[in-house]
């Protein structure tokens, strides 16, 4: 082994509290070390030249640079090794600045610490092997589950970009819930026209295959090449998809779960969705009295729906507005907890609706009693602290969004997780809101939690562009720091497989050992730490590297 050690002074930053000369002299005599130099600025041009010259002239096969923290000068030194025809993964950076010279004052002590840090690097690097960013072939096709506005948006983008798209819809017709909405706020458009436009676009594209009345019955494989079995009207169909976007939407809350709402027992009590459908055919007196109840099936811990459904306040406003527009002399009262008119323009809409005459009462509704003349609502006005009892001709329940009916099935089929509310769980609630833990599987739209049309479109397209980024080349490069299995050692206990968050480990029933699907591995090393016989190892962090680092720190080897 021919190791080159280059110790940076970083001007005074390291040299001031670390005896760099002593270190370089120490390592000069160390077995396996061919070059040991200290230099004022290793990152400077002459510093880099010194390294590449040493690599060429001395034939170094390991390079250790003891300088600032590895995250600084990101690719600089790696590129340097590449230029010198040395695999960049044979480089070891040792931080003797952020982790040594800057955090201690005593030269002698720091020098000793730096020595051990470099020693650890040296021991560890002895186990380094050249690594490659491996290329894996991926299928340039996407499976989109759910033909609602989110799924359609994703399909629209991906097909426009030339990718093969398989759009699977459980219902006979595409369009999800949006197609049934008459007046989408704030676009003020008919939902059907929006959907029709999208479908029309897709229909003309050769690379789009739409499977209506179809469900997924089988799902195997890994990122880049998922093997999917569809249960279509024509029978089973198998296809390969590089990635999947799940956009199965939501199911409307069923108010029957709360019998006190009297829903289903009286025709005069309807949901916002029904109002959308039947707004024109509703039989109402000339001066109708209409009550709108907010938060039906939302913010209700008792029925296990503690979350806010995000869209129902706006839906309630739409109902109020529609009635006021049609019946100028109507009496419309909205019973709410908080008016969450948060979307762009929502607050203004709320104000406008108030100006149109819709009353907003912050209330706890206690009872709904249908009577002959109307429906009597009893409750407490929480602003004035009064008990009220009023009669209405129509009660509209602004229902929330519940998880999609197929949530559990899909989750277990695709090996993804559900959150506590049984929506799909995102990889990170802030920065990866439409990703799952499994690479290449996305959750778009309201299947991961309530969303309005704009947000669902954003989700659909954003997950599509991400998937496109993964697949567009037809191949993908795999991070070199991933796990690999030594099949001779593997006992096939499948503990790693159970623990793997990325679901990147697959068991071979025949050989009774596991293997790593490289494209799916995230490189966390959990499997490595889980395997008692270390049959699975994380490249770049294999056991003996870390063991030897410990030994170097303890001077025990």
């Amino acid at each position, binding site marked *: 082994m021919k190791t080159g050690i280059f110790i940076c002074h970083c001007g005074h930053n390291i040299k001031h509290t670390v005896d760099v000369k002593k270190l370089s002299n120490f390592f000069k005599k160390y077995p396996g070390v061919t070059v040991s130099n200290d230099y004022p600025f290793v990152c400077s041009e002459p510093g880099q030249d010194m390294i590449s010259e040493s690599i060429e002239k001395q034939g170094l096969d390991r390079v250790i640079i003891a300088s600032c923290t590895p995250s600084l000068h990101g690719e600089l030194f790696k590129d340097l090794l590449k230029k010198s025809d040395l695999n960049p993964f044979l480089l070891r950076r040792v931080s003797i600045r952020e982790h040594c010279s800057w955090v201690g004052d005593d030269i002698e002590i720091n020098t000793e610490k730096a020595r051990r840090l470099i020693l650890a690097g040296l021991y560890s690097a002895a186990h380094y092997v050249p690594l490659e960013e491996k290329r894996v072939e991926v299928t340039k096709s996407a499976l989109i589950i759910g033909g609602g506005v989110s799924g359609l948006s994703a399909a629209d983008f991906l097909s426009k970009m030339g990718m093969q798209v398989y759009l699977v819809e459980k219902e006979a017709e595409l369009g999800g819930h949006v197609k049934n909405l008459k007046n989408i706020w704030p676009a003020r458009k008919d939902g059907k026209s929006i959907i029709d436009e999208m479908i029309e676009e897709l229909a003309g594209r050769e690379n789009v295959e739409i499977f209506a009345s179809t469900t997924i019955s089988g799902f195997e494989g890994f990122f880049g090449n998922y093997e999917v079995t569809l249960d279509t009207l024509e029978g089973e169909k198998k296809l390969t998809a590089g990635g999947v976007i799940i956009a199965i939407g939501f199911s409307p809350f069923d108010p029957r779960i709360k019998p006190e709402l009297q829903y289903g027992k009286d025709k005069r009590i309807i949901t916002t969705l029904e109002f959308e459908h039947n707004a024109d055919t509703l039989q109402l007196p000339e001066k109708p009295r209409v009550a709108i109840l907010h938060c039906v099936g*939302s913010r209700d811990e008792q029925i296990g729906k503690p979350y806010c459904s995000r869209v129902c306040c706006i839906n309630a406003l739409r109902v109020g507005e529609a009635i006021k527009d049609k019946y100028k002399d109507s009496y419309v009262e909205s019973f709410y907890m908080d008016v969450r*008119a948060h979307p762009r323009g929502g607050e203004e809409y709320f104000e406008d609706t108030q100006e149109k005459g819709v009353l907003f009462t912050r209330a706890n509704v206690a009872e709904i009693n249908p009577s002959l003349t109307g429906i009597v609502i009893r409750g407490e006005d929480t602003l004035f602290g009064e008990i009220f009892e009023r009669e209405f001709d129509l009660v509209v329940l602004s229902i929330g969004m519940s998880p999609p009916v197929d949530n559990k099935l899909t989750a277990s089929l695709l090996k993804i997780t559900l959150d506590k509310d049984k929506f799909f769980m995102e990889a990170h*609630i802030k920065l990866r809101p439409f990703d799952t833990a499994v690479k290449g599987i996305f959750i778009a739209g309201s299947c991961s939690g309530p969303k309005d049309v704009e947000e669902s479109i*954003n989700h659909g397209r954003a997950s599509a562009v991400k998937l496109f980024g993964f697949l567009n080349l037809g191949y993908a490069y795999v991070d070199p720091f991933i796990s690999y299995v030594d099949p001779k050692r593997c006992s096939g206990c499948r503990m790693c497989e159970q623990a793997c968050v990325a679901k990147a480990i697959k068991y071979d029933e025949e050989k009774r050992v596991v293997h790593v699907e490289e494209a799916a591995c995230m490189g966390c090393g959990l499997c490595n730490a889980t395997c008692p016989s270390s049959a699975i190892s994380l490249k770049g962090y294999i056991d003996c590297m870390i063991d030897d680092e410990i030994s170097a720190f303890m001077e025990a080897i």
Partner: protein
Amino acid sequence: MNKVLVVGGGIGGITAALELASCGVSVTMLEEGPSIGGRMIQLDKTFPTLDCSTCTLSPKMVEVALNHNIELLSWAKPMAVKKAGQKFQVTILKKSRYVDIMKCTACGSCFPGCPVVMKSEFNMGTGPRKAIYIPFPQAIPNKASIDKREDRPCKAACVDACPIHTNVLGYLKHISEGRFTDAYMLIRATNPFPSVCGRVCYAPCEQVCNRGQLDDPLAIRDLKRFAVDRFDLDSLEPSQIQKTEKKVAVIGAGPAGLACAHDLAVEGHEVTVFEVLPEPGGMLRYAIPEYRLPKEELRKEIRYIERLGVTIRCGIEVGNDVTLDAIKNDYDAVFVGTGAPKGLLLDVEGENLPGVMDGLKFLRAVNSGESVETGKSVAIIGGGNTAIDCARTVRRLGSENVKVIYRRTRDEMPAAHEEIEALLQEGIEIQFLTTPVCFYADNGKLSRMECIRMKLGEPDASGRRRPVPVENSEFSISVDSVITSLGQATQTSFVEEIGVLLAKNGTIEVNPLTGLTNVEGIFAGGDVSTGPAYVVDAIAAGQRAALSISCYLKNEPATMTKAVKKPERLTEDEVVDLTAKIPRVGRIHMPEISVKERVTNFGEVAIGYSPEDAMAEASRCLAGHIEGCIQCGECEKLCEVRAVDHTMRDEIVDIEYDSIVLAPGFDLYDPTEKREYGYGTLEGVITGIEFERICSVTGPTGGDILLNGKTPRRFYFIQCVGSRDRQSGARFCSRVCCMYTAKHASIVKDRIKGAEIYVSYIDVRAYGKGYEEFYKSTQESGTFYIRGIPGEITKGENGLLVRVENMLSGEMREIEVDIVILATGVRPRKGTEELCNIMSIERDEYGFIKVDSITPSRTNVAGIFVCGMASGPKDVPDTVASGGEAASRCMEYINQ
């Protein structure tokens, strides 16, 4: 490869850029500030999971930096955009950062030296930063930049005039802003004798001070003394030094020798100083009188040098007690700084009479505490500083009739102007154009001196007019003693033994830049090589020699000090311009002890400034008048990789792009106009984002929630400040304030046990995933939610009084709290308007970029897309989704 421009480096821009890059597009990302990260990186935690914002965002930022498809330009913004067909011709302004990012190692060595303290934008002004800075440790690019906004009005002639290039601008800036210790440390960085120079320097800086062209030059020296007086040097611990195991001998413990020893010791060499006199200090110790330079001040400086590890061996005369050759053999290098300790002779009859004394010997005797009898009438011959020191010393010894005899006129007197003034004030007469010709004794004791009048003739070699005796003008003066002070000479015979070359006048011949003599390993500097000069020149010579000795010991070629720039004057135009801008303010003089009092003892004459006066005087400095970098050059000195380059110029480039994604982000509403809340006037009323920084572990308090150093216990949060509010022109809901308030409340609950927290709200809009639950748990953990927005905040007895009507109970409450946090709403980012104007993009009534809800990133210009808060308030996940959506539209556009 298609090219896309992404404007803005917040989470929206980062998302769009990363997505585009992964789709194989070449992305240029413009960030107006020094680092990407936007608002999100300023957050301490993110709701509803209370994730650390830095942890989640910084990997993304690093991804941007490492992605080969993304070119990141910080300090850059578009200036003009022209649509050419489907493409865009974009003119980009690349503001220079004055730091070469290829060289900068983010070590931060430059920050402490920078004298310009500014409010940190990253910390929303809750903490300071320097003019050269990295906004936060995780910044991308993690490189320093200099906040230079204006050109310096003066030419910093002071720095050029100073032989040791003291950072005058810098320490004046520090003093003017009350950072006296920083000022001292900055002085000390180049000067091992601040207290000496603060007192007895001849201040060449003041002579060239550009302000002097407007009114009076700055009192640069006196301000130095002020800084020195406020610092206790004995408490300064020398920093650790790495030893080189090289030995250097310094001969002569005067300013040159000690300065040299100081710098060599800092480099880690083992230094021994040989001094012939019983105490170190040279002329500073033995020639300059106590009333000008108290000896204790000097001792402190020398003590510090000793604490650096320098050994000073007094009472050893090299050449006598030990040979130079022996020293040369024992040490790796030798510096000779023996000065010019010999007084010159007058060469007139009677000069050897008792009662006629050499000025230097006289001063040495007095400074050594010997009693010297001078009698009643004393004449001092000479016109230099030493002569004046002698005269004033004699006056203090009790002689009543003290005269200075000088053969030319006052204009030719080499002594410092203010010294002459002080002399005259103390009642000492100067006889100009006079020179003694003979001394007479009575009973072996000096009694009389015969003088002759002179007149000025032709100029001599020194440029001064040569005095010529006036014939028959002899007259005599009765004197008890005479002190001659005619100039000094070197004593250099001891160096000849090893063959060091001497000049005719006995000075050692050296290379003036390196101090190297003709003998290898022997260096010299100060008066011994130049003949008598000033303290600061000697220090400079010592330092130069130290530098070349260090190089010599490392076997490196001697580094020549940078070519010295001549001090520049303001041009007349500049003077006119500045006169119009800057009001005339004369110098504030340093107070002195009254003449009556001062002549009775050796107490120091100058008393020193009060802090107020010092700050006022220092703030006259022209350089300090500007905002941002004052170009004092300190960072340049401190940067070892030479990454600082003040000469960088802004660059303007034209690049063609296929599409543009705008993600300029947002600002927060400035609640100053809401007088009822007292923001900006009442202490303790702050905004949410300021509170965020105070909470943040990366913030100015390291995560301790402190208000004026104390932990507040009672908190009042007010929501919807500048949102849902027609008054401030914002009817819209800002969408994030309800939740960030809940987050703040839960952070407070977590960090301050028993904190009392109130939140005023209209509606709690906890609409996102997990938000409602988070709001609930905040409420359940003991945060009082009050429905109703306070009418007024006033100052109460023990804090702030919030008057609010709780709409749910109907009661009017007056709540006393320690801190009020305003959940200020979202506004379009400053500069969005300009950005839209150059791209002809429409905005809505509030100034957000206009979009449509079915194609939420599409603007009115095809090919330009928008994401994030620029088109209206969004929380982080919505921003991420919109970033992706914008990228998707952008991909479609460029693939048409």
